[in-house]
């Protein structure tokens, strides 16, 4: 079938109008010929014979009358062994194999190494009945078992005709031949393609999340845990430590695969990942972090339209690994930049705007995207998960803006970064009162925590949160009435909340020990802190109260900086117990 072609009739920045001579589809990919370059673009609106397309490159020099060829498919990425430890742009071009220091318009590179040999082991046998996403074989990608699957795009049931014997092959080798219901043979290689804007649904079911995903960050794991296969978002004004928190989660998150989408953010932050990650060791496996990480990088100065593509590309890669029964973590920084890219296009198309000039369907787009995360039961009964955490950069630090509000409806965990806490250097600056995790209300998660942490853990968390809340109220009273104007109990209440704040909520992301706090250690510390808060204290004056708690906080913080149950940890613990004997009962 001949491809549809068209000619350029209008240009406003990266929105181009094309008069077409045949059928075109929404979201269809096309290429504009500009001299010796071809510029990739996507159809976003069709009106009669006119298609409006967003161009993923600069449109400088484009003229009315330039030729456009439509590809008859949507934006697709290539899935196969070698995705991990790669660095891609939003359209899955390999940035590491591009020549020259500057990005060249119209340069597209292959996302996978076609020559590299992979050690293949067959899983399926001739005669097996298979459907999309069933495992045919396996290669080792780093230390991860990378399953070679029946391509997601295959409909219905197939019979395995042949499977390649164990051996070393490149990704383009036909590793199996399947026979479809009509008796046609279809070859399968180690790679497949999938349109990024379509969710991969080749699994049996998507149950509610069952367990939490540890991040080693106390204010997340204990106070507002995120479920494996859950969703969360981190809104915060600039300078509140969003990036530091996200990097901490990326380094420590208990996941097999991490995909980081740097969407419209600073290039130097991505450089930091390139520079640091290859040096860092995954605390769970002892392997290099980069081996389990894929970076999708569309920084703020790269073409705006590809920003939107970058988050979908990242999600599709996660869904691919989920189908292998792996636990994936997707971090996107920041979804506001993606929303702004949508706003720029909507504006150029002269659509009627919603709030703050964002497109009216912003909320629907965001919630559709968040819905692609989740834990799934695969066809073979195994499970896999995609956990998604996005950051949001609210304009002016005001959380009452469309992107934050739309995301709040879609995400189940909310980690509100607070300017005030950041100013006081109380990091991570997650507001302990406003932040929430809906998963704490899930009976499945409660049962999981009862079993794996301790019985009644969720109640303990509620109790700790309440101490912090009451401390804030006491602090307000003290500020209004003065130190001498309130009863001593207000000071004690206030300092108990400071105790939890300084010793539990605050955590030094740059300290080798404190930065990663496993859940059993979190439980140990919280039990101690709640024990202290249960006590009654007696002080002659508020200065003494402040001094006593300040000393205690200092001692417990030293514990946080010491290896769990090491000699110095135990000696600080002894010091703490002595302090408690001297006052309180």
């Amino acid at each position, binding site marked *: 079938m001949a491809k549809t072609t068209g000619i*350029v*009739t*209008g*240009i*406003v*920045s990266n929105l181009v109008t094309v008069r077409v001579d045949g059928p075109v589809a929404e979201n269809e990919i096309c290429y504009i010929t500009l001299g010796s370059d071809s510029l990739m673009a996507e159809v976003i609106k069709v009106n009669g014979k006119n298609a409006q397309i967003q161009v993923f490159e*600069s*449109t*400088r*020099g*484009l*003229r*009315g*009358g330039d030729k456009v060829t439509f590809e008859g498919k949507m934006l697709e990425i290539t899935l196969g062994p070698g995705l991990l430890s790669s*660095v891609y742009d939003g359209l899955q071009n390999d*940035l*590491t194999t*591009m020549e*020259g*220091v*500057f*990005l060249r*318009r119209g340069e597209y590179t292959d996302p996978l190494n076609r020559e590299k040999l992979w050690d293949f082991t067959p899983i399926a046998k001739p005669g097996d009945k298979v459907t999309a996403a069933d495992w045919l074989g396996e290669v080792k990608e780093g230390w991860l078992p990378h399953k070679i699957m029946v391509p997601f795009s295959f409909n219905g049931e197939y019979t395995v005709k042949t499977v390649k014997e164990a051996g070393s092959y490149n990704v383009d080798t036909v590793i199996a031949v399947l026979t479809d219901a009509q008796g046609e043979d279809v070859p399968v290689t180690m790679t497949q393609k999938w349109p990024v804007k379509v969710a991969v649904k080749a699994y049996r079911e998507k149950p509610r999340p069952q367990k939490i995903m540890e991040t080693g960050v106390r204010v997340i794991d204990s106070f507002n845990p995120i479920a494996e296969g859950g969703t969360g978002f981190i809104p915060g*004004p*600039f*300078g509140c430590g969003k990036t530091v928190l996200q990097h901490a989660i990326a380094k420590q998150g208990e996941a097999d695969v991490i995909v980081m989408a740097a969407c*419209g953010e*600073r*290039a*130097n932050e*991505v*450089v*930091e990942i390139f*520079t640091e990650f290859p040096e860092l060791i995954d605390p769970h496996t002892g392997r290099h972090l980069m081996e389990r990480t894929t970076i999708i*990088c569309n*920084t*703020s*100065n*790269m073409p*705006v339209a590809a920003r939107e593509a970058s988050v979908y590309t990242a999600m599709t890669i996660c869904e691919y690994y989920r189908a292998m029964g792996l636990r994936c973590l997707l971090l996107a920084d920041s979804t506001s*930049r993606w929303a*702004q*890219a949508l706003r*720029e296009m909507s*504006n*150029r198309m*002269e659509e009627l*705007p919603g709030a703050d*000039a*964002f497109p009216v369907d912003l909320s629907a787009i965001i919630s559709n995207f968040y819905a692609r995360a989740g834990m799934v039961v695969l066809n073979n009964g195994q499970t896999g998960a995609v956990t998604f955490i996005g950051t949001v*950069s609210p*304009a*002016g*630090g*005001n959380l009452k803006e469309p992107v934050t509000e739309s995301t709040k409806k879609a995400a189940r965990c909310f980690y509100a970064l607070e300017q005030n806490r950041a*100013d*006081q*250097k109380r990091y991570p600056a997650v507001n302990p009162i406003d932040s929430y995790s809906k998963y704490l209300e899930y009976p499945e998660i409660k049962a999981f925590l009862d079993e794996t942490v301790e019985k009644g853990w969720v109640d303990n968390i509620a109790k700790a949160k309440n101490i912090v809340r009451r401390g804030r109220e006491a602090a307000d009273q003290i500020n209004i009435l*003065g*130190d001498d104007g309130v009863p001593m109990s207000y000071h004690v209440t206030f300092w108990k909340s400071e105790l939890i704040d300084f010793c539990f909520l605050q955590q030094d992301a740059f300290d080798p020990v404190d930065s990663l706090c496993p859940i059993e250690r979190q439980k140990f510390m919280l039990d101690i802190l709640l024990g202290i808060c249960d006590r009654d204290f007696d002080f002659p004056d508020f200065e003494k109260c402040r001094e006593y708690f300040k000393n205690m906080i200092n001692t417990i913080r030293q514990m946080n900086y010491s290896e769990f149950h090491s000699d110095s940890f135990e000696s600080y613990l002894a010091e703490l117990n002595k302090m408690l004997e001297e006052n309180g009962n």
Partner: protein
Amino acid sequence: MATKAYQKIYTQLEAITKATVSLKASGVANDELAVVHGRLAQVVRIKGEVVTLQVFSGTEGIPTDAEIIFLGAPPTLKVSEQLSGRFFDAYGHPIDGGPEVEGEERQIGGPSVNPYKRRQPSQLIPTGIAGIDLNNTLVSGQKIPFFADPDQPYNQVMADVALRADVDKIILGGMGLSNDDYLFFRHSFEAAGALDKIISFVNTTEEPPVERLLIPDMALTAAEYFAADKNEKVLVLLTDMTLYADALSIVSNRMDQIPSKDSMPGSLYSDLAKIYEKAVQLPSGGSITIIAVTTLNDGDITHAIPDNTGYITEGQLFLRADADSGKVIIDPFRSLSRLKQLVQGKQTREDHSQVMNAGVRLYADAQNAKTKLENGFDLSDYDHRCLAYAKEYATRLLSIDVNIKIEQMLDTAWELFGKYFSKSETGIKNALIEKYWKA
């Protein structure tokens, strides 16, 4: 401008607004330049046969039968060593009476650096100003603006910083500079005897606002030439980016675009990021560092311009008049250099970051004491000491008229700690206290 054979000439305008003209034309390229009635203009929209041009110097007096000549290329700058020491207007034409520059003609607003090919910034840029070097250390390849109210002496501070920085080239992009400020820059560069390493692109308040839109791209095209082709360390000064953003909003308004927050165009973030992200440390050793000015309205950083800027840049330097010391200081609370930890204690003395943190924390305690005082509560002895410390700290370290070496800044801080506080009140690690404490 001489007419060449391939140029297309039109003489019929369809529409005129204050900033744009539209006409029927064919074969016109996006971003292409044209001369409309003798004025430079650029293609911003093509819709069927109708081409819309943004006229940089405004459309006053342009008749519907004006002559329009398309030039066949986007704006360019001729780059070579001859740029050094020269002053140009927004189009890259000399305004210092000297000859036109000969060199390779390059399109401005060129492609971005492949993020994978960047290097992590790692070279300290000392400025002599303790509010910067001590608390918000600058690193080559960084991008950072001054946030300042219009009455703050930001241009003077920026000129000081530029002239003290150890760089190969300084490129000034002046947008909406008052004539007085333009002459100020010119005189301070001349007086410092540094003219040969300075290149200036200047649009003054006397010139049309839309012309300003060319200034950052001109300045950064020159910067990329020296950084990427010549492997030099280049410092780019952009003042005032708020006026640049205002010009963006004028154009988007004339093109009937729907404004977003604070009547700024919806693409403000991308427009600003395209400029600031030109700051880079290249693998070859060359670098571009950008120091900009974003003027605020009464310290309001939630306005769309400083807000978007803050999300793009690697920190900000906040200028504020300090009542206690009577000086303009770099506010230690609202200022931030995101890259400072890349050089502190690595290219500076080991005690740098601890001294910085202690100094700021004690200054914060002084602010609390001040609030207590204002609310009529009694002050403790510690509060009194904090207040006395804060005044001296602001005068001797935070003030922008300080010009000392980083070692001296650290020694001064230790001197103040010893004068007003006990060792434990500073909260500094014991090992450092033993080594540096001044009784």
